């Protein structure tokens, strides 16, 4: 298969604690993959290892054929992978527009160009009316949206979204999901990390990867994963898996 991102036998051990164990998976260009797993399953660690925050203990990460192991987060961003954070990280004393311009500067050198890109992306995500607000004054939902806008402004080929909908109400969740669904038309693939197996994630994802205790326990279409006894067990316990 023509994977854009190809993760092979990836392991990460903290002290004696294995956070990721021989994880294999791939992402094709323009694909939306749901990465689900209970709290502590290793989703954030996986994102941190792919984006260069942590070096993997073993394994390979190939992006368009290039090995990412050992590169810094900023190198990886320039190659085309960016991310959002589980605990949002706005640049609080800068305006919404300035936040997004910082992202846009990954591809352009002048303020005018960065501003143009930023305004366009703010329009895409619907944050344009709040462009002059300070990032620290935004609600959680808007901060998450700001992170997504900023990430898109770096012109990535792949965005890793850590806990995209955590803390959002149902309406905000729907809006975010709709936005993610539109990423492929911009030529952007996305991995949406979520804790709960939610209907919304199941409907937008082309594929689901399930992590539990640092291991990939299942992958496949949303229907396959939804009926996988191991997945049900991971979420609900053994008793339910047998009756499913």
């Amino acid at each position, binding site marked *: 298969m023509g994977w854009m991102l190809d993760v092979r036998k990836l392991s990460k051990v903290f002290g004696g604690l294995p956070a990721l164990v021989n994880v294999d998976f791939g992402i094709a260009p323009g694909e939306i993959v749901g990465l689900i797993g209970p709290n502590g399953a290793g989703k954030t660690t996986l994102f941190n290892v792919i984006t260069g925050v942590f070096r993997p203990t073993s394994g390979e990460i190939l992006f368009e054929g290039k090995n990412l192991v050992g590169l810094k987060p900023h190198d990886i961003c320039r190659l085309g992978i960016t991310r959002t954070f589980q605990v949002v990280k706005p640049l609080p004393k800068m305006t919404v527009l300035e936040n997004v311009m*910082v992202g846009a500067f990954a591809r352009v050198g002048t303020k005018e160009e960065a501003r143009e890109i930023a305004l366009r992306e703010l329009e895409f995500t619907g944050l344009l009316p709040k462009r*002059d607000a300070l990032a620290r004054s935004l609600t959680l939902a808007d901060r998450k949206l700001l992170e997504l806008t900023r990430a898109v402004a770096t012109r990535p080929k792949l965005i890793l979204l850590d806990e995209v909908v955590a803390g959002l109400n149902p309406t905000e969740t729907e809006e975010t999901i709709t936005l993610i669904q539109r990423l492929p038309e911009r030529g952007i693939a996305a991995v949406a990390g979520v804790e709960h197996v939610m209907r919304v994630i199941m409907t937008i994802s082309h594929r689901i990867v399930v992590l539990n205790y640092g291991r990939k326990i299942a992958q496949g279409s949303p229907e396959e994963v939804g009926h996988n006894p191991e997945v049900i067990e991971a979420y609900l316990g053994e008793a339910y898996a047998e009756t499913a």
Partner: protein
Amino acid sequence: MAARGGKGWRWGGAVLGVAVLLGFPIVVSDVYLQHLAIFFLLWVTLGTSWNLLGGYAGQISFGHAAFFGMGAYTSSLLFAKLGFPPWPGMLLGGVAGILLALPMGHICFRLRGPFFALSMLALSEFLRLVTLNWRDLTEGAVGILLPPFFISKLPYYYIALALAAATMLATWFLVDSKVGFYLLAIREDQDAAEALGIDTTWYKLVALMVSAFFSAMAGSYYANYMAYIDPPIVFSIVDISIAMILVAVLGGMGTLWGPVVGALVIVTLSEAFRAYFAAAHLIVYGVLIIVVIVFMPEGIVGSLAARGPRWLRPRMATDAPGASQG
């Protein structure tokens, strides 16, 4: 936001400001006031160069006297030992500052937390002790006596003015560009900055090098002007390193005009109180720090600007023409 004819007002203000600065020593012939004006300009230079690194990039240094003293000793030794002309020597002093900044930044900026701030403190103390004890080279505690280069204060004044203006222009130029956005992003959140493609180590190093260059030039200037340096003066923690921080914090960190206001306040107050309290004038520093932190955490310019005209505001940058028209 040039509404209300703000642009004309600004140009008028700028022309008036330049005229006042250029005309001051001609109109005001009092040598003592000229001396204070020179010190004001020196502190504008020092506060502005600390502010680029500490205020904009968020990398606090407790030991910028290291660069100041490095510049002072470089040009003074070049003159005393080799007869190298002292004013071009200022430039070499600045280069020496950069050479000192490179390894410091290279090592410290990979780490987060207080390492950089404390390493700078250690560096300036280290240099103070080296210059104090390496008598063959530096004359140790005896210090270096330079001949006075000009009788009149006018040339000194204009050189100080040029140095302060160059420092502010360099800051303005950097802050108003991609680099400025990147420095602010690093100050605000380093992880986010990295994820957005910013080589944080490199940009912090750039800010440090520019800051060190101008601080060291100011040190060379100080040596040429005072015609005497010794290690406790130019590597002073309180009178140089802390005072630089105070100028920036008092005026407003991360604002272009903050250090100007800060320098005005510090030079005026410390001069006024020196007359009455002798060495106890340092108490003023302590009181000022408390007052500013309690009542104006954004500094004088930062606090006023939040309510004042848009171009004064501490953030920067989208106040470029038409920034808010969308």
